[in-house]
């Protein structure tokens, strides 16, 4: 379970500006998971670990959806999502934006079971339902809430509270992204119900519900899908129907993970890891330029130019191709290179 800093919750102060800031933080937080997941995903060699790759790819897609949903909610309440500025990109290794630094340091690292368990499952871990507190009570008791789910619960509370005083959904509906992901077509954020539906989907896809590991689309939530990789077994309904027996077990078909099917990619590189003038440096510079172009493209996408989805997808595909090339490119050491996901608005 990732614990968020209390400061992140301070924005939930009852003001529209605070709510918008909180949603902007949520966008940053959702985005911050994507580079580490992609790094692990692209470290898989062509044709190897296919099922594992499929699981991670599907989770990345949902993280992108979550970012889009957050942007739509922020637009619906007349905010302006921002993605194109240097601080938008977290430093790896480091805490997730708003995360408590002593608790979880997120690296850029090639795929390994331990990475899945120690990092990815921690990011997505739901709070134990038995101890799941009611946000209002917590706030009343003066105890800061701490999980991503609680953070979103706090946003919902604010949406409700501020809606009760008057319509806050005054954003231009043309700024909504309603293509690209199926749920975006269904959840067009324009009122309290649709905003809550969007947040519920984000939380349930990430953590599951309080009573089930499945999300509304009947897929295991991210935490459980990463756990499938770690345990090497699909999560299935428990075939033993006994009182008190767990409802689900990791007892389905084996999910093979072959460590030899992962490139020996460098862990936690930054641009200075690669000597100036080296092939890895050149490839990394171009990758970072492409990545920054994607952030620029998405800022336009979520600020009134939804037709920029096509160019944004093109940039994502280009990043993939470049990352795969880098990860199969040997550096001077025995390791291969990996993209550093740094903000870089020119190709030097």
């Amino acid at each position: 379970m990732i614990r968020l800093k209390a400061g992140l919750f301070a924005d939930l102060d009852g003001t529209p500006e605070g709510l918008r800031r909180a949603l902007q933080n949520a966008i940053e937080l959702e985005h911050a998971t994507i580079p580490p997941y992609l790094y692990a995903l692209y470290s898989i060699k062509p044709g190897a670990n296919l099922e594992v790759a499929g699981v991670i790819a599907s989770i990345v897609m949902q993280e992108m959806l979550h970012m889009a949903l957050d942007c739509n909610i922020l637009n619906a309440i007349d905010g302006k999502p921002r993605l194109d500025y240097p601080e938008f990109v977290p430093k790896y290794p480091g805490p997730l934006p708003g995360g408590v630094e002593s608790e979880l340091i997120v690296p850029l690292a090639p795929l390994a079971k331990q990475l899945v368990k120690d990092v990815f499952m921690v990011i997505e871990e739901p709070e134990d339902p038995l101890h799941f507190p009611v946000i209002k009570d917590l706030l009343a008791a003066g105890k800061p809430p701490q999980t991503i789910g609680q953070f979103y619960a706090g946003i919902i509370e604010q949406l409700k509270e501020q809606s009760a005083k008057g319509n806050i959904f005054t954003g231009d509906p043309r700024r909504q992204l309603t293509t690209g992901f199926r749920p975006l077509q269904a959840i067009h954020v324009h009122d309290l119900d649709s905003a809550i539906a969007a947040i519920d989907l984000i939380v349930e896809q990430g953590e599951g519900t309080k009573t089930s590991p499945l999300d509304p689309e009947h897929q295991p939530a991210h935490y459980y899908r990463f756990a499938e990789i770690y345990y090497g077994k699909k999560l299935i309904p428990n075939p033993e129907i006994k009182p008190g027996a767990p409802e689900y077990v990791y007892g389905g078909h084996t999910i093979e993970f072959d460590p030899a099917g992962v490139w020996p990619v460098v862990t936690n590189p930054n641009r200075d890891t690669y000597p100036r003038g080296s092939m890895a440096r050149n490839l990394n510079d171009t990758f970072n330029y492409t990545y920054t172009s994607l952030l620029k493209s998405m800022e336009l996408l979520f600020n009134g130019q939804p037709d920029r989805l096509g160019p944004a997808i093109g940039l994502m595909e280009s990043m993939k191709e470049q990352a795969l090339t880098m990860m199969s490119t040997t550096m001077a050491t025995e390791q291969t290179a990996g993209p550093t996901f740094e903000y870089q608005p020119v190709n030097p």
Partner: protein
Amino acid sequence: MSYLNSLRFNFTGQFQAAPSTVNNDPLHFDNRTFKPSYQQPGAGAQNGWWNPTGDAVWRLIGCKVSGVWMGNAPAPVSDPIHGYLVADSDRSVSAKLVDLDPEQQSVSEIWGMQVRICTPDGTNLMRSRYATAPFNDIWDRAPGGGDLIAGAAYQSVLDDIEWGDIGNSPFLQALRAASAESRKLSIKFNVDGYDMTPTSPNFTRGRIIGSIGPSAAGEPNHFVIGRHFTTTDRGGGNFFVPSGNINFCPAVVDAGAGKIYLDLGNALPTTVSGGPIKPLGTLTLGYMSGAAAIDSIDYQTPDWYESTAGVVEAPAGRKLTADELKGIASNPLTLTLTDAQGNNAGSAGEPQDGLYARADQFVYRLSPGDEAEVRVFATTFGQPYAGARVVSIFDASQLQPQSPLGPAPAVATPESAVEFPARIVADGHGLARLAIRASDPGNPRHYIDGQVYGVRPILEASLAYGTGDSYNPWDFVSLLVFNTFQPDEPITWFGSLQPIFQQYANLYPVMKKFLDMADYDSVCANAKLLQLAFGLVLEDPNSMPITRDLSPAKRKAILRWLNEPGEDGKPRKGTPPPEAALAATPEPAPVERPDDGPVRGGKASAMSRRLMFQRRR
């Protein structure tokens, strides 16, 4: 006006061009005989040459403003433009570099490029769209072999211009004002020093040095209306060896300023690939066959090329005299090289009567029924040649219908599929319009769609002088005329589309990183993305296929197939052809021929296969 005027700036940096090399051989297009080895790196046509997984990207990398000129002098150093960059798009994927055809590889076009002027932190001062254009005037610029010795030039316009906050830069304000009417800028850049060593950090990169200036309304987009120095091919090279050491180049006489603007950027050889300009002695600009000297050109100063892009304002330190202006108005300009011993070391000059005619756009893709209206501009001593008679002929001499693997499909046949008037007459502005009409060539090349043709417009008046004088072999119109295409109904994978997708899968192994184009299920799984990419205009850098060689008729069929799924919700599969039918298809026996090895490179190899050489043999 164009970049070749007193208001311009230069930029210097690297380009990246990473085409797939699997498609370098026309016989690799034949699905029936395609071998897995063609996708492997390795020398020659039995392999896939040096970059089989190329993705066709074209990028500007690290391009810095390296010279700024206004009012016949360097712009003040206080102008912040001196610290700016020239960059490509920061909102979309990179541009693409695309051959017209495996049998016409000498007009590779850049598609979908944005050109920006920005600060080092990425703040935009200007954003624009590069109008698609190919290189021209490729030549043996450096000693040695392979593509790395080549030099070539691109000229086009930048349109869709958005200016940023240029309040701090008097130069950019002047540039914006000078281009206010046309809303276009003129751009020209020279490329050389291409690195084709896969283990090199600069693999697929080269040197780019260029100029940007205003563009006047009504002037051609892809060449300069002015004075054109010509030369002839000495022969024996990979591309073109100028007999007088100086390659084709343009100049503009600015009578008001008393200056000649001369662009030597793609005209002077280098000591090594991408290296300094080779010292060839004193270079003198003059007229009357060199008898009257105007100025000697100081091309050997360190950084001369980088800081000027080879653009010279002559005479330096003074204006052209009235006599000189009168003299050059009716006499060919000349460039003469003289070595330390006073011997002639080379030359180039305008043809007799200063005659010049060229097609502005000179690469076309046509479907049956399409008509290209080619704008041919005729000048004499840089002035519009009103009423010029332009004759046009089929000329396939620069096309490349050969393969080391065996007989390659013939080009430029049937001629009946391309019609154009034998003679056209220029209007009062020297502009002649050549209408080229395409009809169905009837699939003469079987496994390569359509047919390629060359059509060369020539000034009738210049014919009297023979071809040795005023003849630039690269100045002709290249046409790719697509076949008609009738898909099965309803359209199915096996009924119509499998061979098309198979060919792309064969020729562009980079696609394996995304999907297997040869596999029905993989294509279906990516149907949404393919719908998006195949639905884009060619100018979009995301347009598929990257090669821009899919006929509109086939594109329409693919989009319909993707958009109109069958009952199972997937694009229709149809039934595979019976094995017997496949077996009955005759396989041409590959003929092993001595290969030209890795050193030549893609372009050099293609150029060695030009018909002009075949006929000489």
